[in-house]
């Protein structure tokens, strides 16, 4: 199959392997340090989530908190009373975690389904179907990549407001749901790599283009489709500017936005660090889950394609 390989080719190590010299040890140390710097903030976040605010402000820097506590999680999740929360150093503000998680999951799932589905049909049209103006239209789509989001956010906000879609899921999703130039470009690359002979055989057997797409192209493209789905999910989970502008209401507020609000409600003189780290931990967990399940696919796909 002529599909571009998604996995980095395993390399022969044999003849190139060198003796273990001081340079090699130094290189390993450097890589280890970089990995430590990369991961340590998350270790510290996790550790702090189990530490009391009192211990933090008393200057406890031990890796394992002396007096581990679950109060921060129960505060953030709204299981602790306001008095308990304030006693633990919080502002009394809560993150309605399950509601915001639900919103984020709806947002992410809808965005992934819409974008991948609609982009797949469009990408197939651009890759394989003959029609007048195809390449010109594709160029125009690609040019969409150049427009900085802030430029379209202003009119899009006005549009969504005029439609009465502020603080609704349609408003939150509208700019992303039907397409992004990137998704179409990404899938088109893969469809171009599928040998036309396969489709021609089906066409000779009397199958129409729609049947070919459903029965042949889509089943052959599960790898790029799921790769795009994972990338899109990461993007949706990370999105901040538009959701915080159009989804302020609790019913549609995303976890990401809620976390930002929670951070801003924390007093600046003595911030509720423990609560913030507990909330951040809860926000990171789904990402880690994604990494554990799709780790290999994700890491290899980054090799193939890069987005902002």
């Amino acid at each position, binding site marked *: 199959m002529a599909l571009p390989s998604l996995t980095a080719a395993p390399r022969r190590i044999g003849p190139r392997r060198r003796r273990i010299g001081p340079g090699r040890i130094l290189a390993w140390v450097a890589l280890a340090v970089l990995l430590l710097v990369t991961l340590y903030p998350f270790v510290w976040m996790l550790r702090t989530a189990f530490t009391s605010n009192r211990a933090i402000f008393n200057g406890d820097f031990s890796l394992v908190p002396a007096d581990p506590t679950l109060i921060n999680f129960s505060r953030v999740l709204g299981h602790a009373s306001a008095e308990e929360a304030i006693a633990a150093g919080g502002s009394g503000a809560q993150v309605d975690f399950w509601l915001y998680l639900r919103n984020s999951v709806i947002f992410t799932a809808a965005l992934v389904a819409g974008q991948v589905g609609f982009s797949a049909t469009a990408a197939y049209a651009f890759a394989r179907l003959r029609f007048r103006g195809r390449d010109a239209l594709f160029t125009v789509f690609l040019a969409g990549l150049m427009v900085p989001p802030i430029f379209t956010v202003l009119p899009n906000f006005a549009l969504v407001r005029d439609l009465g879609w502020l603080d609704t899921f349609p408003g939150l999703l509208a700019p992303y749901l039907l397409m992004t130039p990137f998704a179409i470009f990404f899938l*088109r690359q893969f469809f171009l790599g599928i040998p036309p002979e396969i489709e021609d055989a089906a066409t000779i057997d009397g199958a129409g283009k729609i049947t070919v797409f459903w029965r042949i192209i889509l089943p052959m493209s599960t790898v790029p489709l799921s790769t795009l789905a994972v990338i899109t999910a990461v993007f949706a989970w990370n999105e901040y500017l538009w959701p915080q502008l159009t989804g302020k209401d609790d019913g549609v507020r995303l976890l990401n936005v809620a976390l930002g609000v929670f951070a801003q409600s924390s007093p600046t003189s003595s911030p509720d660090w423990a609560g913030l780290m507990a909330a951040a931990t809860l926000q990171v967990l789904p990402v880690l889950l994604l990494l554990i399940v799709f780790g290999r696919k994700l890491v290899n796909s980054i090799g193939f394609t*890069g987005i902002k």
Partner: protein
Amino acid sequence: MTLTVGRAGPARATGQHGTRRRRPSSDARVAWLFLLPSLAGFAVFYLAPTLRGFWISLTDWNLLSEPRFVGLDNYRDMLADGKFWNALRITAEYVVINIGSQTVLALAIAVLMDRLTRSVLVRAAIVVPWLVPNVTVAIVTLFMLDHNVGFVNHVLELLGLEAQAFYGDSDQAIATIALVNTWRNMGYTALLFFAGMQMIPRNLYEAAAVDGAGEWTMFRRVTLPLLRPVTVLVLVVSVIGSFQIFDTVAVTTKGGPADATRVIYYYIYQKAFNEFHMGYAAAMAATLFAILIALTATQMRMLRASTSDLR
């Protein structure tokens, strides 16, 4: 913007297909059906707002009243606005620090991985910060870099150095934000470089080793020149992304202290959604758009000049 390291040749596929076209009329009907949702999305949320954005930039509009046409007044005001120039200068500072450090570190990580290990675990670990939302990264680093109880200052004090305010110091804030995002993106960028390095034929290294070249010489004489097309593409993509710094500023410093981190994206946002000067904000956004196009065009020219390295 996409960086393709695969081998799918668009020219080849379309070229072949062109010669065997059949029933073009039925193709067109299916094609427009397949394109309909994307076309609608593109027209309504990309094309129309782009055109409308330029129109808004020529008006005085507060989102409530009718927009009033004012010609180029917004652009004239913008050029006379010290805050606008300050925002551009700070953004440039941010981009230089961020892209400079990020590219160097990412190259280093990619080379280390290329020479030491193929482990998926290492590659997955190095990309973790990129998977974490900007908001979360902002909150976690706000704590890590806190003046009083932050871990980084704890380490500095252990080393006998003075504690720093980082986000809270107007001299350090923009560099802090730039380096935080370097930390977030360097692993991801390293994976892009790493993928590019896998395309370099191994026998070149073997030949260099036979000639007695050390690691540094190999890096300078083999890796860097052959990686140049990938490097330029990575730079194009990451420079555009870097100019759009917003989330970290919005959560950590809100443009402060003393305007030291009011980057152009944040200034546009403030003008539009805090002060409701939509026309003025649109004029600045249009200017940013123009700057990005000019930058990309320049970088693309560099790219085209450098594609012939791998024969």
